[in-house]
């Protein structure tokens, strides 16, 4: 398949729809699996890796999935195209950069399912959904796992469960992650409080937040850490209850802002939009920050004519590999910053903040 044809399209997870999509960007669940009686990828000889790859590739090709799964060998992709797939979250950075030998990825047209072969584990399955959709994602990946398991024998241990190269994944092999946009908590400086609530459960929270007066702290990813001693539904429940609390905090923060600081908020959003519409150099960092403010503005009805899917599209298209594919040439950092600013100006030309 031609990767370029994917360029204008948004994967399912970036659709900007789904439950709680004003705050929850996407839900992702991955399962790590290995074949019985085979060394793990990092210790397998070239011929063994080839054997694993051809076995899994054939199995994936024969899967009776409702939409076709396209398999691409990593050796057939140049660095730019591998980076392109990383930006679309279809492969890991490790897959793009680190591993040697036969390896590849299969994904469907909606980009909601991706199956990596010979990553750190021989099979890394991933299901992505936009919005807060843990159950849907689990159902889908559980089904794919069952279908593959009918064709191959997984490395499984009575006591330790599904065996993985890294003991942090052993057991269920499941990592569920939810990506959140929490500008309200950032602006009201309550992100610390939210972190404290998160600390009560054993979940991993990743992300960053700006310090001082620069309110950023927008994107956070919450994942389960433990894969032993809890069933998949139990682990998902832990995440679910934490997210529900976080959503409550964020909504409260947003309504407080709207009630008590509407003008300042409006100003902030309008300035962010204005900068995106007029700057001539734009780094990725700044783009992220400004789009984050604009995204908040859209969900708080402070901007007209702009939709969440368009913002998601801009997030995606302004990343280096996407940008270079759109422009159609390789660009160095500075040229990219100019091209990014030009692209943003074009896409946001007609948009205006709400004047009231």
């Amino acid at each position: 398949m031609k990767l370029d044809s994917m360029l204008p399209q948004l994967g399912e997870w970036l659709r900007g729809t789904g439950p709680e999509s004003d705050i929850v960007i996407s839900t992702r669940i991955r399962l790590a699996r290995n074949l019985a009686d085979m060394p793990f990828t990092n210790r397998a000889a070239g011929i063994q890796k080839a054997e694993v790859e051809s076995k899994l590739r054939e199995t994936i090709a024969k899967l009776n999935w409702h939409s076709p799964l396209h398999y691409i060998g990593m050796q057939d992709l140049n660095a730019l195209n591998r980076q392109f797939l990383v930006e679309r979250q279809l492969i890991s950075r490790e897959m793009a950069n680190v591993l040697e030998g036969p390896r590849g990825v299969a994904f469907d047209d909606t980009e909601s399912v991706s199956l990596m072969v010979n990553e750190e584990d021989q099979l890394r399955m991933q299901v992505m959904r936009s919005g807060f959709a843990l159950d849907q994602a689990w159902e889908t990946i559980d089904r794919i796992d069952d279908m593959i398991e009918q064709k191959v024998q997984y490395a499984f241990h009575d006591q330790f469960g599904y065996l993985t190269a890294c003991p942090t994944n052993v057991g269920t092999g499941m990592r569920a992650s939810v990506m959140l946009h929490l500008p309200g908590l950032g602006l009201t400086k309550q992100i610390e409080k939210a972190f404290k609530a998160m600390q009560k459960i054993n979940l991993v929270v990743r992300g960053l937040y700006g310090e001082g007066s620069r309110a950023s702290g927008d994107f956070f990813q919450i994942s389960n850490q433990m894969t032993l001693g809890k069933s998949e539904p139990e682990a998902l429940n832990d995440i679910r209850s934490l997210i529900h609390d976080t959503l409550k905090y964020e909504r409260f923060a947003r309504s407080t802002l709207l009630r008590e600081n509407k003008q300042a908020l409006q100003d902030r959003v309008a300035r962010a939009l204005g900068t995106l519409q007029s700057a001539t150099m734009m780094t990725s960092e700044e783009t992220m920050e400004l789009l984050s403010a604009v995204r908040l503005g859209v969900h708080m009805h402070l901007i007209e004519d702009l939709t969440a899917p368009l913002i998601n599209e801009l997030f995606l298209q302004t990343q280096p590999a996407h940008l270079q594919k759109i422009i159609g040439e390789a660009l160095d950092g500075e040229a990219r910053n100019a091209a990014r600013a030009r692209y943003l100006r074009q896409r946001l030309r007609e948009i205006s903040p709400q004047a009231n």
Partner: protein
Amino acid sequence: MSKESLSKFGVRPLAMKCQFCSNPATMHLTTIINRKKRETHVCDACAEERNILPGKSSEMPINALLQFVLGSNPGIEKESDETACPECGLKYAQFRSEGRLGCPHDYEVFKERLEPLLLKIHRSQNHVGKVPASLHSARQAQEMQNFRNQLLEAVTRENYEEAARLRDLIRSKEQLDETR
């Protein structure tokens, strides 16, 4: 990897130093593991080298945790680190330095040393959750056979109350299987 791609989902320049090389840090990660908050400040070069990447698919905090747990485990004597897995040849010492096991057998070969490690990471040593369907049915068959043996034994001991209980249990399980 370019600076821009690193910045996806949250990288911002602050006047802090990279904790690995003391260049200006460009990434500031907050990780919460087992109720402990950790901040990591790194520059792009070190982030790339160490595969520390925010958001996305990076599993950095978990790998960092593993390194942390493995590194703070002085109770293990050197000698036993030399035992190698007969299947893949991995020695425990190698696992300690690399953080990756070599093959499924390693979980048996190094079982005694992995158990306390797993307890630290997961607070558990036992899998609870999905079981491959093939094993699932094998387990069920085994369980039914056990019940039948117990039933036979109860009958020989003329413990008819127990026998009746087991008979009903077996019947209900068989019916459950049929309806599936």
